[in-house]
């Protein structure tokens, strides 16, 4: 009975550690690594060959590399290191811009292939038979079969699970964790806000891999054997099921999932007596139940038992604005008073602008820029230069290539021809996140908020150069990034206040109305400390009165040095704020000038009427 309980505790600890690693990688960073199990396997093998004696000295009945006979706890540390290192090449698969399901298939197949190779190549890790007689930690000084040792092992496993929990919780609550969640919600947008997706994904894979490796090391020290059967693709599905059922993005949920799925279904039921005459029935039914659990849970409760917690930042501070809005006796002159409005329009918005050292008149230029999609030329031969500190408008009928042009300027799309220069430097091949870091910031035509981040978090995420945004910064903790974070919160609150949206600060951005989401996006781009702001139909769905207030604010920001390039359909906005205006049609630049000049241009009028 003692052994049953201690075995369950060790398995529980190991499963919890593995699920926490997956929770960090998949639930927080959104990296769907269907090869996750091979990191646990790598850790187990590593711990085994680090603690085993050389294979020739071990009776010679199994062959393996290594055999270093290292003392505890070096094999466990080695397990974590091997798990982490193995993740590095994986980053190149996940880093590619592949459809989610294609990447998932690639990783799943990689895991199956590793298994096949280890199974068939016997000299490496003893092939299909696997490694056995793996020494238990400290077995020279304590008898591993004694009850005391068993309890001790269980305690260590549970303690390490607790430490793993504290570790992932620690990095998740940092700005680094917030940026990972932003990447999970919308990687293209995170990229356009200056977040280095490749390094974020690599760090997530390495952290998850190291945690999984550790779990493998702990397991193999307890069960003393490890073979390819222990890490089939189905085991990965079990871990995913655990994290999904527990609650994606919630580390406590991952622990709960680990207890419910792998522990309760795989291990605890191991001791159900087999059905007479059909020993395979119970294990087969277990798998069926796990499959059912996955599908049913994803349908009935996709957020899991313990859903991701909303990060409340403003708390009660968000309240008064709501109260003021609905205060009895407040004279409501017209309905518009209920709309969000930019308060005290005279004062400029609290935007930190970047001013590069470049002094030329045209801050952004493109020459002969073109982009084809499967032979369709969305933009061709676009040459234009954008004057510093001006609000340039781009208009044109649908399909004129405006958004494609903007995406190329921001680096979201690679041009198929032509060159782009920014502050006099060629940036044609500079990736989007690096352009954003130099102050070239864009917004998107389609809704692009980070849905499962609150409005406040959406805004704060955009701030460049956060100390706690790197993995190292996250490790150093609140003492390292706390002061800067408080400043960031203040800035975001001020911005929200000015847009009259303070009461929405703690809401999930995904819950807002279309117009409100547009505003979040505009505010977010302003938080990104732009030098050049590329806005793709920022006013679509925004109340006309508010749109004009935003326009006024943008103009006053240009007086402070900001350059704005704005694609917009609303001609009254163009009339009021944009000078010059560029007209595009059928992928080409048609004309450029002030709106009054353009209105007199027959070709422009025709393009609009025909388009």
């Amino acid at each position, binding site marked *: 009975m003692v052994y049953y309980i201690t075995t369950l505790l060790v398995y529980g600890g190991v499963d919890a550690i593995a699920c926490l690693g997956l929770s960090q990688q998949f639930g927080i960073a959104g990296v769907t690594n269907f090869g996750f199990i091979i990191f646990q396997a790598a850790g187990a093998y590593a711990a085994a060959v680090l603690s085993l004696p050389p294979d020739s000295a071990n009776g010679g009945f199994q062959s393996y590399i290594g055999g270093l006979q290292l003392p505890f706890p070096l094999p466990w540390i080695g397990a974590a290191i091997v798990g982490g290192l193995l993740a590095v090449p994986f980053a190149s698969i996940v880093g590619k811009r592949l459809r989610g399901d294609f990447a998932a298939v690639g990783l799943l197949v990689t895991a199956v292939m590793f298994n096949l190779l280890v199974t068939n190549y016997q000299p490496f890790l003893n092939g299909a038979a696997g490694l056995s007689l793996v020494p238990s930690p400290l077995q020279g000084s304590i008898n591993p079969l004694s009850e005391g040792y068993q309890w001790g092992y269980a305690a260590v496993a549970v303690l390490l699970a607790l430490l793993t929990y504290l570790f992932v919780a620690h990095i998740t609550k940092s700005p680094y964790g917030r940026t990972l969640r932003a990447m999970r919600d919308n990687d293209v947008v995170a990229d356009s806000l200056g977040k280095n997706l490749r390094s974020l994904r690599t760090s997530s894979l390495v952290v998850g891999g190291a945690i999984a490796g550790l779990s493998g090391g702990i397991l193999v020290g307890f069960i003393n054997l490890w073979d390819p059967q222990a890490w089939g693709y189905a085991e990965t599905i079990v871990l995913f099921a655990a994290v999904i059922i527990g609650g994606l993005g919630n580390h406590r949920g991952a622990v709960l999932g680990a207890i419910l799925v792998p522990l309760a279904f795989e291990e605890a039921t191991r001791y159900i007596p087999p059905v007479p005459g059909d020993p395979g029935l119970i294990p087969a039914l277990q*798998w069926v139940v796990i499959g059912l659990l996955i599908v049913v849970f994803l349908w009935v409760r*996709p957020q899991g038992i313990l859903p991701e917690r909303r990060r409340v930042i403003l708390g009660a501070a968000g309240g008064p604005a709501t109260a003021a809005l609905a205060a009895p006796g407040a004279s409501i002159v017209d309905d518009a008073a209920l709309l969000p409005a930019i308060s005290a329009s005279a004062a400029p918005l609290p935007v930190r602008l970047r001013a590069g050292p470049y002094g030329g008149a045209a801050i952004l230029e493109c020459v002969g820029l073109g982009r084809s999609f499967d032979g369709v030329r969305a933009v061709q031969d676009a040459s234009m230069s954008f004057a510093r500190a001006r609000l340039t408008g781009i208009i044109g009928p649908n399909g004129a290539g405006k958004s494609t042009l903007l995406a190329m300027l921001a680096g979201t799309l690679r041009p198929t021809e032509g060159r782009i220069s920014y502050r006099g430097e060629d940036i044609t091949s500079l990736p989007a996140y690096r352009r954003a870091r130099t102050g070239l910031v864009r917004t998107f035509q389609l809704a692009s908020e980070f849905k499962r981040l609150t409005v406040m978090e959406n805004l704060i995420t955009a701030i460049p150069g956060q100390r706690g945004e790197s993995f190292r910064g996250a490790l150093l903790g609140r003492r390292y990034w706390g002061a800067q974070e408080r400043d960031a919160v203040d800035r975001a609150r001020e911005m929200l206040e000015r847009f009259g949206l303070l009461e929405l600060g703690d809401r999930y951005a995904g819950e807002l109305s279309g117009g409100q989401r547009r505003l979040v996006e505009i505010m977010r781009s302003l938080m990104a400390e732009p030098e050049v702001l590329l806005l793709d139909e920022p006013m679509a769905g925004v109340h006309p009165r508010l749109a004009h207030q935003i326009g006024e604010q943008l103009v006053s920001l240009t007086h402070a040095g900001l350059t704005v390039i704005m694609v917009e359909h609303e001609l009254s906005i163009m009339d009021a704020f944009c000078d010059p205006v560029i007209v595009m049609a059928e992928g080409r630049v048609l004309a450029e000038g002030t709106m009054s000049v353009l209105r007199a241009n027959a070709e422009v009028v025709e393009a609009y009427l025909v388009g």
Partner: protein
Amino acid sequence: MSLFIASIGFGLITAAVLALAAVGFTLQFAVANVLNLAYGGVMIVSAYAAYVVNEQGVSVWVAALAAIAAGAVISLILNGLVYRPFQRRGTSSAAMVIVALGMTLILVFGTQALAGPTNVSFSMSQGATLQAGSFQLTVAQVAIIVLSLVTMIVVHVVMRYTRLGKAMRATAANRDLARNCGIRTDRVVTLTWLGTGALCGMAGAVFGMDAGTFGATSTDLFLVLILAAVFLGGPGQPYGAMLGALVIGLATEISAAFIVPDYKYVVAFVILLGMLAVRPTGLLGARA
């Protein structure tokens, strides 16, 4: 040299089985936009359906009809009850992979729970061995190749010359546009699952004949071959899948003859991962 020629024979049979499976898989992806990783599971359930009929003394070639029916019905249910509802809700493609893997567990281990863990075999005659030099095939193997060829021609005719085929291609290219043009896309999708399910069932029966013995988990690795063939030709491209099946079938069997049989799948893995890394739209695909 004789080993090489003999391995070509094996390669052609593998390619024949693979083509039946891969064309169905790739059409499901094209029209329904889902990577149905439960495909191997449906294949094996269908093979068992044929086995049950075959056990009653019916010829395996007739019993294959049961596999075809089973494949069609299960695929229809799989789409109607699982994939379609999830897609309507806007489930991400990566989450759909998890759903498909969950369904795989249900199908494969449900079969194992019913049929037991031991492998089964069809009772069938391989027929005489036809020999040309060191190239040799049994009558049954020739029949499999002919069946696959005929099926490929039928797929070609349906896709190219029938209203359904045109509707399928239109739906694959742009479902919303197709619907706005008056194509009843839901019906097209349903018919696609019916047809591809039948292909899947046929592939399952033929897989069982070719493998000699099979168990509930036998198609786990075969699914990798299917994926390799599909991604080599370009996901969603039926002709690409046929080409991919031929290449993968020959490549695995020839490498099995000359390297080590244990590693024959590795060739398929390497091709699949290479395609995903370099050109995920496949040799014949352009659509990203």
